[in-house]
């Protein structure tokens, strides 16, 4: 899974899926640790999208500035 390409919405639905698996007991206890890690990374990703500056986006915006508006 390419984390950079993952949108906020996709990340949220991935977390919900993992949560559902744990809740319904579909998930083996052996998988739990890795899934917990995965989910906490996804949560961090979501928070990042809310608060953090993304260099990639700023770069694109800067490039747009270069091409001019009029």
């Amino acid at each position: 899974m390419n984390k950079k390409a993952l949108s906020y919405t996709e990340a949220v639905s991935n977390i919900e899926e993992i949560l559902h698996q744990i809740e319904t007991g579909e998930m083996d206890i052996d998988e739990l640790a890795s899934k917990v890690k995965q989910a906490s990374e996804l949560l961090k990703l979501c928070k990042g999208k809310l608060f953090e500056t993304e260099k990639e986006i700023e770069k694109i915006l800067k490039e747009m500035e270069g091409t001019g508006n009029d």
Partner: protein
Amino acid sequence: MENQPLSLHELLDQVKSVVKNNMSSGYWLVAEISELKINYSGHCYLELIEKEPAGAIKAKARATIWASVFRMLQPYFETTTRTSLSAGMKVMVRVSVEFHEVYGFSLNITDIEPSFTLGEMAKQKQEIINRLISEGVFEMNKALVLPTLPRKVAVISSGTAAGYGDFENQLSNNPYGYKFYTKLFPAVMQGEEAEASIIAALDKIYEKDDFFDIVVIIRGGGSQSELSCFNNYWLAYNICQFPLPVLTGIGHEQDESIADMVAHTKLKTPTAVAEFLIGMFHEADNTVNQLSLAFTETVTDRVEEEKARLYRIWLLLKPVIKENLSDNAGSLRMQGVRLQGCVERRILKESGVLNRWVDRVGEDSRKLINRMIHALEILEQKTQYLDPFIILKRGYSVTYYNGKALKDPAAIAGNEIIETRLAEGMLKSKTI
């Protein structure tokens, strides 16, 4: 030629008196404004036209609103219609017909009926709405799904408008610290140029529609008039079909413009648009927090559950373990390991032997069988020599005394019955 020729002035003077004597002092007139100019001294010069239904001009006349009248008519008209007099507008005006020897024919406007224009505008607006509906585009932008997190916002506004400044401030100084990316696509937001200018800005955003999440059209700080451009058909048509959701904050206080109606979400002011976007982030933020909480709880529950299960297993096993295992679990484990090693080595060795056997059996099986058959034949011959019946046939006999084979004559006295076994039968006799 009957008479002396007239001078131009004499002729036009006659026209002037005909006009003056034959026309009444005022008429209510319905016409469309095709041109409008206000000069430095405040006089308003117009061109009025009437069109054929097909669009060809049927009649045309110059008209004037003198500054002294215009100063009163203009605010009156704008208060009622919330728009200023402009080209393309249909008006009902009271006129007097003037003819001047130098300036020619013109209409002098002395009064205006704003409610007529209002009615015309409403009618025109309704026609545009109906057209957009019949073309099936009216609801198209509304049908788009609003992104959960509108981070990359394309803004159409005048860069110098107060409303744009408010919008930017509101977003960048939001109390939660959310990060928005905005990019201004400057456009003229009022008057005749607005339509083309806003459409051009939309076209520019369209080129980057996979980058942006949302489009915001904002205007604020200007006058409430000059907003008729937002009722324009082509602008509405472009908004309808735009691939990204369009949010408007145009600032109509009373009736909605068509741009507002077809936009995905209509908000009153630029500030309201900013609040709306921040609200969406806030909602997303809450979702993440709740997920995070739910996640912690669920994982804790799951781990506790597993711990409890292990404890139950331990309780069940404890007595069994105590009974069956020596306290020296370590030595047991070592023995176990050693045993496993032994078994493994042994299995390896035995399987080697077994393999060799299998090979040899394969090679020698026929030889072995032959040898066994030969041995059996010898055995059969030997058996034949030893068979007592064959020995009897050769003339040997066996003598029984008291049911036992007699081997020593000294073992019996005289006058006893003995039995002799011959090849062909038994013979009883008496000793002497």
